[in-house]
């Protein structure tokens, strides 16, 4: 027993519209060009997707990482700038504290001078001033006050202040009232009507407070302040608790006024962001130990971060350049690889087309041989019979050349010519496309109809029993009824021909795994093993005497293949054959049916 599956035999039979057009043309350069363009389009899309995918795959994490580092960097940058400015402010505050302490000590030491007297004369006072100015040239004058608050000694540029009563002056009252033995006043105008500081020290003699005070030149103090300032664009000032500047405008010799930022008294030091004239500024402050002043260092944020901003800019530009370079490399590499793959695909496609072309040429050759044989047979009959007529008309042979005898021969010629005509018509039908009229076909009804027709003609001379084993509720097949009818008809005719005189044809239908199966089994002669591979080839026939064209099973296989199904043959010589057709249930077949050559 041998089973032959036709599914691989008819691989060139179209399943789709595109294939149908392929079957129409043996080789069409326009189709070929379209396919090449399709390949190019595919690879163009592939290249774009790969480039975008890889660049995004690389750039996206890179961008996220950069954004994270940028955020961290900015934060660190700001913190660093703040710390830096705070350190500057702290350092300057310490310097000023030290400076003021030294000045306090300078003045206090006058009480312990060798020629100190509770009633100093002018010379002594001048000496005191000279001593002070030896330590620091910022000292403007020096005064000595008795317990009543009257300046009983004075040396300096304002001699009219001598004898003045200071008991009502704020600084004097604070000094007498407080436990501290010294006081550094805020900047004030005083009796001299010029901005100045007072550093006063207090010493008890016989239980009574005597005060030695000196004033500091605000200009000189300002110069000192500027001298200790460092850091680019750092503006250093001193303010009191009310926010009033404790330095003077050197050009105008007057107090500058109030600042826009008053540091909180609760914190000894700190850094704040402020906005001044639409510019972000950093303000670092530190309260002095010796006096309720705060040192305020102000620096524009842009300047504070300038160095690191530059570093960040270099890093960002480097990152962008590296990203662009990598993207270009990715693009070029992908372009090269995809172009190579495209060339190979095009070459493969060309080879495939050449192979298909060669295969079709071979098929045409086989077909031509089959056609030639089929047409030559009736032609041979025509020529032989016309030869007979010529012989009949040749007196040499003394044959019956009556019109009746000649007519008889002419009938034979007509029959042979009609046979040739039938073959050419069948060939034409094979290549002709029809408008599809796909409907739901009930296989059982179609089989019944076909068998009914065959019984009237083909099966009539023989004693053939038809046994139906049809499954009820069979799902319909979406197809054109006529080609399907032709499939059943061609196989059933063969089954009938295989039965010599008496036999049985069993028709079974069923449904399994979305496929409708139809088995046509006969008790005929069976198919010899050497022929079983050829039964689906066009023009292969075992029916002698011009009874078969060899196209029936070929056409049936083409149609079944087109419908997405297969035909399997199971045959035992001498016992019978069974053809099983498997067709997909409810499959959509919308294209025109065309039986390929």
């Amino acid at each position: 027993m041998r089973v032959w599956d036709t599914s691989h035999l008819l691989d060139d039979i179209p399943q789709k519209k595109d294939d149908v057009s392929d079957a129409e043309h043996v080789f069409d350069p326009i189709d070929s060009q379209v396919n090449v363009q399709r390949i190019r389009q595919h690879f163009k899309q592939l290249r774009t997707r790969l480039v975008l995918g890889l660049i995004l795959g690389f750039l996206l994490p890179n961008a996220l990482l950069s954004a994270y580092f940028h955020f961290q960097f900015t934060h660190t940058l700001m913190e660093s700038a703040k710390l830096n400015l705070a350190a500057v402010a702290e350092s300057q505050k310490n310097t000023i504290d030290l400076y003021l302490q030294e000045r306090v000590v300078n003045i206090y030491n006058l009480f312990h001078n060798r020629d100190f007297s509770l009633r100093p004369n002018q010379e002594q006072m001048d000496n005191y001033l000279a001593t002070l100015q030896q330590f620091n040239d910022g000292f403007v004058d020096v005064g000595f006050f008795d317990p009543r608050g009257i300046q009983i000694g004075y040396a300096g540029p304002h001699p009219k202040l001598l004898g003045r009563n200071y008991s009502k002056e704020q600084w004097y009252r604070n000094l007498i009232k407080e436990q501290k033995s010294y006081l550094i006043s805020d900047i004030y105008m005083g009796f001299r009507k010029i901005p100045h500081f007072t550093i006063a020290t207090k010493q008890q003699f016989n239980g009574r407070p005597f005060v030695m005070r000196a004033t500091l030149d605000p200009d000189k103090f300002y110069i000192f302040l500027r001298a200790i300032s460092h850091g680019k664009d750092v503006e250093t000032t001193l303010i009191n608790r009310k926010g009033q500047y404790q330095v003077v405008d050197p050009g105008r010799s007057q107090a500058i006024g109030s600042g826009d930022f008053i540091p909180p008294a609760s914190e000894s030091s700190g850094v704040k962001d402020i906005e001044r004239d639409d510019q972000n500024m950093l303000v670092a402050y530190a309260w002095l130990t010796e006096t309720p002043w705060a040192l305020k260092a102000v620096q524009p944020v842009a300047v504070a971060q300038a160095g690191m901003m530059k570093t960040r800019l270099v890093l960002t530009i480097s990152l962008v350049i590296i990203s662009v370079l990598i993207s270009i490399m990715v693009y070029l590499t992908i372009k090269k690889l995809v172009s190579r793959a495209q060339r190979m695909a095009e070459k493969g496609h060309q080879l495939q087309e050449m192979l298909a072309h060669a295969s079709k040429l071979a098929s045409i050759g086989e077909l031509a041989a089959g056609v030639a044989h089929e047409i030559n047979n009736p032609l041979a009959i025509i020529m032989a019979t016309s030869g007979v007529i010529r012989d009949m008309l040749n007196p040499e042979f003394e044959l019956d050349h009556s019109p009746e005898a000649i007519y008889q021969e002419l009938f034979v010629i007509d029959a042979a010519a009609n046979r040739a005509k039938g073959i050419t018509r069948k060939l034409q039908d094979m290549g002709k496309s029809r408008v599809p009229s796909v409907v739901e076909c009930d296989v059982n009804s179609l089989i019944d109809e076909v068998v009914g027709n065959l019984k009237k003609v083909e099966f009539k001379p023989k004693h053939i029993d038809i046994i139906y084993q049809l499954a009820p509720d069979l799902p319909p097949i979406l197809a054109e009824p006529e080609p399907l009818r032709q499939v059943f008809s061609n196989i059933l005719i063969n089954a009938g021909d295989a039965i010599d005189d008496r036999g049985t044809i069993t028709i079974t239908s069923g449904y399994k795994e979305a496929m409708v199966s139809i088995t046509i089994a006969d008790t005929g002669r069976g198919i010899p093993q050497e022929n079983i591979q050829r039964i689906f080839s066009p023009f292969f026939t075992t029916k002698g005497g011009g009874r078969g064209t060899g196209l029936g099973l070929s056409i049936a296989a083409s149609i079944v293949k087109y419908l997405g199904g297969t035909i399997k043959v199971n045959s035992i010589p001498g016992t019978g054959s069974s053809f099983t057709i498997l067709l997909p249930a409810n499959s959509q077949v919308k294209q025109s049916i065309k039986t390929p050559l």
Partner: protein
Amino acid sequence: MNKKERAFKVLLVDDEDVFREATARQLSVRGFIVQTAGDGETAVKMVTDDPPEVVVLDQQMPGMHGSDTFIAIKKINPLIEVIMLTGNTSVDNAIELMRMGTFDYLMKPINIDELLYKIEDAYTRKKLNEKQQREVDQQH
């Protein structure tokens, strides 16, 4: 060769009944003693029972193929000359037929005069071969 000289047996084998009979009639009126067979098996049997001088054999027949029939005939009597009738126009097929040892081949549809001359030539060669065979046999 005149009509009397043609009175030797020719076996015509073809599955096409009408062609076979028409050709047989044409050959008969020209003096040949024509036997006919519709398939290879019958032809082999007839060659065994009543050997002809020349066989005109159709190449493409259902059942026993022309080539197989040729081999079977040559096995029975190698001296019988066989003219093959073929519908296949390919050069490959012609070479294959000659290689097998057929006397000649004719492509369908055939011209009766051409067939006649080929049968006569085949007969002449057969007689020549038989004579040579006899001489060889006598020498041994």
